[in-house]
């Protein structure tokens, strides 16, 4: 087993108005040699005059990186000859860098790590030499641009961590407003040192890698380099200490120069610049500019505004958006609604009109105003979207738009009640039908009231008023196959059926105010479920949640696959305000049974489910007899299925208190229709493979699966996440490497009830290095459905990963 060590040297160009030692404009992309003067051209007799703004920004970054700030700092001359370096020495910091001993926290695949910052120092940039054919041209516009160098300790192990650190650092400097972080244009540059050694033997021989002008290339170059060095050590060779260049066209590193001895830069103190004293006033000014940093802001967003991690990530990513969001909340917008709108409809509008939020007609005031109109019930969701669109097209205040267009909805319950009363009086026959137990025509009545208000009433309010007037509670019972809806044939075998009889039985036992809306979704046994069946179920639940008349939804399901369906529904509807209750029974109701009908398991479970569905406890539930279970981490263990003394066939793994409600993976209204959802589910499930690790499992089996089109593996590992990585045909190592090259992801769960975080065993750590993603406490079934939901929710690979790794 090898250990790898990665350290980064990051350079950022500070966004000062002028260069670090003269008054020239510090700008990218101007006419070559247009921003130059005798000072930055190194003319005879000129002297450097330190730009205070550069020093301020430098201390700001060092502070944000938790460095010890030097009370006195100074400059040194670093001597080397190069045509793009006007003075042939660079004014830099050597003896007393302005910041030392800092850190930046990064997290990759649930592994949190503190990367130590060795030092932060300020220096001047060189010009650019451009080689054109047999000519070399020099542009000195960049010469003298303030450059801040951040040197980390070799605390990273894999390219992904370096990529993460770089992305996080980029976000940080953009937040601080000191650098635009553009790697292509070179305002953020990164070199890396990498070495490997046998575990426990300390640092190996260092190779420096240059020319990586994106964070993606940093990852690829480092992983390439680690693999290259491993191969050398495997063959018994020694790594040559050298500088290598990343070749982005060939995806490999190449020798640039072999270092025979260290360069001698003959550092000595810069006599032209006196020491800089970071006095109280200076440090206070730095402190004042230290804005809340992205990581802290994201956490605060999650804490203060109850946002999900992807939402908080999205909002805190860029400071202007985060500021906009908070400003809107401050002006009265609901935090959750504002987050949803910004990530959804507002983003769509911005894309459509190809504009930035802060430059769009949607000022913070208008945005907050729109959401407040919605919250006050003066407009409903559909009208709100139209109003948003009108703000973009007409550039007017939302208040004015709804007044001009007459979109304001009727919120006055008393006034609406008169319409409800009128409709009820008119539709006596329909009312009769409902009172006799058939709740289906309720939707018709809602439509009647809506028509009377010309669509300006809120449908949910109308429904509520109607239900109130009729004294109704409505539970939809969805029959979704399984023994609970089945029957036992004459030959003793269980065959699929429907709930009809069962419903008749319990109908008599529950409150007369409850109306059943029973829907037959399929006649099949639980083990026969197909992606199309899931699509039907999701679509049915979605429809019922949005018509708004249900007090609760009950799903009668089979036992075999209940753990899958329950968690799948959770990832779609975890934020449902209406209780969604799944139940099952091992055996069907049997009229010929000796036992009392009402005592049969099917009847008992269904009755318990209906009670739960009318309990007003929101979220997704699994009810089995006496058991109230969480839909996630549900395990069908069948322990005690036959014995009344034991708890029951189902259990939640790794869960002290059951979780019913939370953030769904698929947020907001479902935008796919049934056909679309079916197609998407089939495609998605086709790219996933669930595999259990076992002794003697061959890695090439996984390779064959990858070749057959599998993109995502859920690997059920031993205990807290171990597997064989020895160099044998039974090792997974090759398969991981093969998969990693092809962008295949490996999500890891436990065969036991272990919490998979790769923190305990060496093989676990190696798995992490190979790119396996530990899924913590989640069970295979729950991870499988979460992956399905994540893939439905987004086409973007990084977004899918983020949803998968988001803490529960």
């Amino acid at each position, binding site marked *: 087993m090898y250990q790898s060590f990665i350290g980064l040297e990051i350079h950022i160009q500070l966004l000062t108005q002028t260069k670090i030692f003269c008054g020239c404009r510090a700008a990218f992309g101007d006419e070559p040699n247009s921003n130059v003067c005798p000072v930055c051209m190194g003319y*005879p007799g000129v*002297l450097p005059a330190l730009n205070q703004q550069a020093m301020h920004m430098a201390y700001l970054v060092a502070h944000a990186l938790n460095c010890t700030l030097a009370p006195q700092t100074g400059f040194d001359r670093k001597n080397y000859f190069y045509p793009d370096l006007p003075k042939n020495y660079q004014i830099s910091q050597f003896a007393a860098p302005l910041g030392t001993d800092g850190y930046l926290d990064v997290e990759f695949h649930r592994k949190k790590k503190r990367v130590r910052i060795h030092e932060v120092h300020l220096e001047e940039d060189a010009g650019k030499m451009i080689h054109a054919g047999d000519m070399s041209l020099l542009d000195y516009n960049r010469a003298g641009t303030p450059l801040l160098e951040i040197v980390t300790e070799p605390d990273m192990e894999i390219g992904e961590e370096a990529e993460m650190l770089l992305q996080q650092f980029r976000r940080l400097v953009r937040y601080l407003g000191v650098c635009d972080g553009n790697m292509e244009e070179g305002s953020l540059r990164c070199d890396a040192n990498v070495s490997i050694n046998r575990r426990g033997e300390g640092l190996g021989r260092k190779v420096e890698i240059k020319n990586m002008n994106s964070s993606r290339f940093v990852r690829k170059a480092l992983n390439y380099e680690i693999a290259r060095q491993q191969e050398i050590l495997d063959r018994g060779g020694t790594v040559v200490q050298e500088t290598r260049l990343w070749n982005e066209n060939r995806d490999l590193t190449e020798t640039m120069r072999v270092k025979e001895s260290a360069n001698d830069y003959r550092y000595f103190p810069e006599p032209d610049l006196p020491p800089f004293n970071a006095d109280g006033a200076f440090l206070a000014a730095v402190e004042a500019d230290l804005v809340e940093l992205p990581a802290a802001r994201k956490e605060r967003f999650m804490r203060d505004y109850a946002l999900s991690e992807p939402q908080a990530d999205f909002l805190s990513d860029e400071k202007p958006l985060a500021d906009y969001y908070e400003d809107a909340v401050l002006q009265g917008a609901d935090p959750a609604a504002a987050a949803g709108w910004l990530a959804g409809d507002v983003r769509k509008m911005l894309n459509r009109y190809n504009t930035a939020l802060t430059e769009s007609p949607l000022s913070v005031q208008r945005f907050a105003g729109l959401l407040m109109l919605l919250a006050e019930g003066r407009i409903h969701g559909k009208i709100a979207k139209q109003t948003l669109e009108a703000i973009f097209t007409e550039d007017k205040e939302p208040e004015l738009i709804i007044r001009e267009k007459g979109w304001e909805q009727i919120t006055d319950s008393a006034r609406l009640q008169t319409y409800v009363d009128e409709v009820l009086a008119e539709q006596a026959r329909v009312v009769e039908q409902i009172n006799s137990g058939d709740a289906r025509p309720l939707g018709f009545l809602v439509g009647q009231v809506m028509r009377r208000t010309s669509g300006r009433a809120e449908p949910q309010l109308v429904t509520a008023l109607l239900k109130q007037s009729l004294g109704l509670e409505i539970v939809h019972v969805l029959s979704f196959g399984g023994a609970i809806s089945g029957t036992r044939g004459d030959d003793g075998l269980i065959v699929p059926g429907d709930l009809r009889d069962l419903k008749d039985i319990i109908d008599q036992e529950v409150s007369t105010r409850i109306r059943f809306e029973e829907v037959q979704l399929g006649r099949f046994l639980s083990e026969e479920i197909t992606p199309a069946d899931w699509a039907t179920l999701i679509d049915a639940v979605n429809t019922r949640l949005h018509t708004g008349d249900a007090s609760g939804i009950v799903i009668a399901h089979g036992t075999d696959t209940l753990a899958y369906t329950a968690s799948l529904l959770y990832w779609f509807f975890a934020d449902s305000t209406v209780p969604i209750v799944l139940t099952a029974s091992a055996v069907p109701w049997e009229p010929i049974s000796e036992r009392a009908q009402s005592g049969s398991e099917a009847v008992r479970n269904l009755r318990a489910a209906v009670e739960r569905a009318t309990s007003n406890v929101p979220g997704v539930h699994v009810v089995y007899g006496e058991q109230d279970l969480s839909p996630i981490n549900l395990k069908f263990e069948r322990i005690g299925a036959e014995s009344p003394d034991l708890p029951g066939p189902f259990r939640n793994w790794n869960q002290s208190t059951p979780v019913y409600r939370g953030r769904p993976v698929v947020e907001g209204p479902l935008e796919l229709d049934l056909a679309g959802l079916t197609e998407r589910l089939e495609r998605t499930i086709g790219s996933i493979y669930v595999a259990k690790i076992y002794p003697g499992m061959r890695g090439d089996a996984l390779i064959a699966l990858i070749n057959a089109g599998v993109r995502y593996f859920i690997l059920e590992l031993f205990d807290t996440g171990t597997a064989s990585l020895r160099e044998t045909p039974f090792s997974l190592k090759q398969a991981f490497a093969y998969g990693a090259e092809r962008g295949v992801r490996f999500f890891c769960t436990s065969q036991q009830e272990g919490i998979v975080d790769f923190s305990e065993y060496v093989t676990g750590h190696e798995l992490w290095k190979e790119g396996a993603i530990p899924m913590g406490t989640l069970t295979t079934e729950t991870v499988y459905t979460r992956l399905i939901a994540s893939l439905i929710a987004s086409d973007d690979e990084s977004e899918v990963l983020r949803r998968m790794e988001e803490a529960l």
Partner: protein
Amino acid sequence: MESYWKSVLSAESSRAAYQSAVTARNQQLGAFLEFDPERGAAVSAEHCLEAVNRGQRAGDNPPDSALATVERLPFAVKDNIAVDTFSLTCGSRMLERFRSPYSATAVARLCAAGATVVGKTNMDEFGMGSATENSALAQTHNPFDRSRVAGGSSGGSAVAVAAGMVPFALGSDTGGSIRQPAAFCGVYGLKPTYGSVSRYGLVAYASSLEGIGVLASSVDLTEAVFQVMRGQDEMDHSSLATPAELVGASSVAQTGTRVGVLTGDLGLDDQVAAGYQRSIEVLQQLGYRFERVELPTLEYCVPAYYTIAAAEASANLARYNGVRYGLRPDYAENPEELVRAAREQGFGPEVKLRILLGTYVLRSGFQDQYYLRAQKIRTAIRNDLTRIFQSVDLLFMPVFPVQAFGHGAEGLSPFQQKLADRFTSTANLSGLPALALPMGLENGLPLGMQLMAPAFHEHRLFQVARVLEEELPPPVPPQYPPLWQSHTVPE
């Protein structure tokens, strides 16, 4: 005299006469590398005002009398100090064709006060030398004896003043480069406190040691020029304002001033030793109290000075690579070769020697032995002088162990010249102000001594110098009488 200089450039006729007289004298003496009063007149005063306002503190605003003194005066500038559109050769082939795109702050402040640059003076290449014999561009002769050197490196400026071509000139002093030629030519030469005059526009040789100073024909003028130039400058972050408690300190004569003199064998030749003794006697007669002081670090001055100067020079001169300006070889295979050829052809042997020396002492692993040790000596010298200035107000010392020596092999070897810098380099290592003053003639050659004072106490230097000036006015070279006496040039 004053009225001559104030009007010499204003009328067409007097300017022409002046120009031809200076040109004639220059042909004999080689003081100027470029002489062009018209170009100097074109350096606009308004443009220069900007430099005056660039960070100069109120306390350093020149008194009206100083402004009045320099107004309308012509002056010469050593060719390592930038004057817009003039040459800036530094006495080197490397910059032979270079013209400065800007003016030094010190020059600009003088121009803003109404003084006019008339030309640029010869010097040892990049200030490296004590005889102006290391100039790659011209030879400069001592006006008292043309077979002798003018001293250096500000030899051209000293000659221009001594031979009456200008009333004052600017020079630079890294290890004695103003005071030694001033002593050789019999004029006043001020090396101000480090940082009191902006170095912006002074081509760097040894940044931590050097500064711009004045060579002039009278104490009043020396002081006035200094007062106009001094003060903080935003373009030079090592520049300093006069400490508040010293602002406006008077240079009026005070009784009871204590003057320190060095004891022991100072290694002076007979003439200089006798001159030093005689000078002390003169001062005693004038009522100054003398105290014998020891300067135990004196013998370490020269090695420390050359180590630091060479180290800084090796970096400061690295910019001359033929890429952006300066001498460029006609052909080079690649950038490395271009740089190598430009430096090979552009630098003289003394410059190359010091660059190599400086590179050597800065190598990693050798810094403790050389560069850092030199810095320790420098600190010790500073401490020595701080101690001495607790018991005396001024220090009185020789400038150089010998008088102006002969050209070439007749004179001192380069090594002897370096050793002889011990009296002058003390002020550079410590950053203290020092003034070389003429003490009459010895064997027909000027004899110069120097006064050194604590930092920002230039007024004490002028105070004593002014008293002495009455006793021992600066000598006039017999062949070069003042121009207002004769515009004719003797053979």
